[in-house]
């Protein structure tokens, strides 16, 4: 099972009680660990925890240990604000979150007000980095949308493309909108543009049929892997053979328990992270994640892992200390973020701009023989 064993949210590690406040950094996390989006929140919670364990074991941030507290927001804006306030009461100094976009925007209004440093691993909507205390690890949606369109166009993957997206999801619509507007300039024709909603996300027969009827050479799936797994299965069922292309949301596809990997053969995705990547960092991360949480990490876990290391790097750069208050730390980190460069799971030489966006290269990956291979 993918459950946490609870340590993630309880306050202190095995450190002595005086560690809290004075001697250690308090990093808070927010995301859905119950409710229908729990899968993303749990991955972030775990990925960050793993990073924190490593850092603490290695001596912490500039010698100070990290205390970690992750709060559930059920994927809801209101609950996210509650979670934020709970963390504030706990004494949070840095916020790693939230996981999903709408809550991230709501919490952003609070955190900017408090001048609390906020680094979201996966909040990809444009407004998630609206304020200057906000940064993110993942790509923004428009960024992924235009990158996908460019990649398809430049590599001449297809000229006729169908899109299937989740119109009730901020992430999916964000990529979709940009992709559509960018496609034209890349010489890519959108022949079918089909939506589904969160309430209606198991039956894709109509959308696939339309894609097929439109003669699309490629189906673009700016969605999460749980729905993508179903789309692939249903396409197979109806005998529709085409190529599929997705973004970072598709990562995790191969790790769906009991998933028939042959369905995903030749699926392409533009993602900064792939659990099967051969580099040492990824392999180590995947191995320890698997050991601890009994499942393969997806890109949410990787984003969170990187987020924690980015906080570490920035903190050390700014030379902030645990006895500073959140606002002072924020001032330091805001500046330091634009000065650091880290090698993470989701990119090498990741840098940040002052408007909070990461600067890293997406990797195009293709699933061949059931494993990710760089294209």
């Amino acid at each position, binding site marked *: 099972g*993918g459950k946490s064993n609870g340590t993630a949210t309880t306050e202190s590690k095995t450190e002595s009680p005086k560690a809290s406040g004075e001697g250690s950094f308090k990093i808070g996390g927010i995301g859905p660990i119950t409710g229908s989006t*729990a899968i993303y929140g749990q991955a972030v919670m775990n990925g960050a925890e793993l990073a924190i364990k490593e850092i603490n074991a290695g001596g912490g941030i500039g010698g100070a240990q990290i205390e970690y507290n992750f709060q559930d927001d059920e994927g809801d804006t209101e609950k996210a604000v509650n979670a934020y306030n709970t963390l504030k009461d706990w004494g949070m100094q840095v916020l790693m979150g939230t996981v999903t976009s709408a809550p991230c925007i709501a919490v952003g209004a609070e955190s900017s007000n408090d001048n609390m440093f906020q680094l979201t691993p996966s909040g990809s909507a444009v407004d998630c980095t609206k304020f200057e205390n906000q940064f993110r690890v993942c790509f923004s949606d428009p960024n992924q949308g235009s990158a996908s369109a460019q990649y398809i166009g430049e590599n001449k993957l297809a000229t006729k493309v169908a899109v299937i997206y989740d*119109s009730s999801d901020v992430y999916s619509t964000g990529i979709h909108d940009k992709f559509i507007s960018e496609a034209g300039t890349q010489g890519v024709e959108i022949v079918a543009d089909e939506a589904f909603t969160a309430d209606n996300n198991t*039956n894709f027969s109509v959308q696939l049929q339309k894609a097929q009827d439109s003669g699309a050479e490629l189906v673009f799936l700016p969605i999460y892997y*749980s729905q993508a*797994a179903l789309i692939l299965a249903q396409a197979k069922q109806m005998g529709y053979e085409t190529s599929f292309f997705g973004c970072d949301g598709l990562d995790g596809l191969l790790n769906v*328990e*009991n998933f028939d990997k042959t369905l995903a053969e030749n699926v392409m995705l533009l993602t900064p992270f792939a659990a099967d990547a051969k580099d040492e960092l990824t392999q180590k991360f995947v191995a320890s994640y698997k050991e601890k949480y009994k499942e393969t990490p997806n890109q949410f876990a990787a984003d969170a892992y990187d987020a924690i290391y980015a906080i570490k790097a920035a903190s050390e750069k700014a030379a902030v200390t645990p006895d500073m208050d959140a606002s002072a730390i924020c001032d330091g980190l805001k500046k330091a973020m634009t000065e650091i460069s880290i090698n993470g799971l989701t990119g090498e030489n990741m840098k940040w701009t002052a408007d909070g966006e990461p600067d890293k290269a997406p990797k195009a990956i293709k699933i061949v023989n059931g494993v990710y291979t760089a294209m």
Partner: protein
Amino acid sequence: MMSFISYFINGLSLGSVYAIIALGYTMVYGIAKMLNFAHGDVIMIGGYMVFTVVSTMGLGPVAGVLLAVILCTVLGVVIEGVAYRPLRMASPLAVLITAIGVSYLLQNIALLVFGSNPKSFTSVVTIPALKLANGKLTISGETIVTIISCVVIMICLTTFIKKTKAGQAMLAVSEDKGAAQLMGINVDGTIALTFAIGSALAAVAGALLCSAYPTLTPYTGSMPGIKAFVAAVFGGIGSIPGALIGGLLLGIIENLSKAYISSQLSDAIVFGVLIVVLLVKPTGILGKKISEKV
């Protein structure tokens, strides 16, 4: 034309899944007179049971479905006995809210036991798909099995209620529990039996739902549960053939409106049609007119 038929057939597949869930819903509603909002979650538990038996333990699909039926039946009876029975004589709304509590409970148990990651479900159906018109149209094995199961279940249930003593007892209990007791009917036993049957059906529905749309999360049951509830109302809640017709219609309307009107608004359209149907026929397609003697 070809694509229309194809949309239609896919709608039929979807509808048959709604129908099989609606049968269990309508059964429990018709007899126990309660909206069992936890029904969808019993379906989800059934799905996980099949998954565990088939994919984790490696037994055959028949064993999986059988064990799921047993587990869900027990679960249904336990839920009824522990959560609903103490509220037997209370307002139906109190039971409805308790059912919501049970629904949350089942979802969160599943979340803790099975995790939030979706599982890919191996179909329990082994019949090959039916290919028509030179392979241009396919009716999947799941659809065929689901529709046949629906019809068989519908016939069995109808006969059971019409012809057996237990069935008659159910009707009596649904009308007036006190008077039913005065006939010598064991009211608690009859309601427990109703839940047992409803939950067994939920297990079958779970297996077929997950076979047709092969993914499984702790929330798999909730939306189909609501849709099937709508289907049951559509057909006339409490009416067993109504559940079948309601389910099929719902699936077909949903798919056709997705295809021809808007894929984002298909739910809104389905609900819109439901409203129109109920305004024309306030008790659903096959629902009995409730005439109150003054």
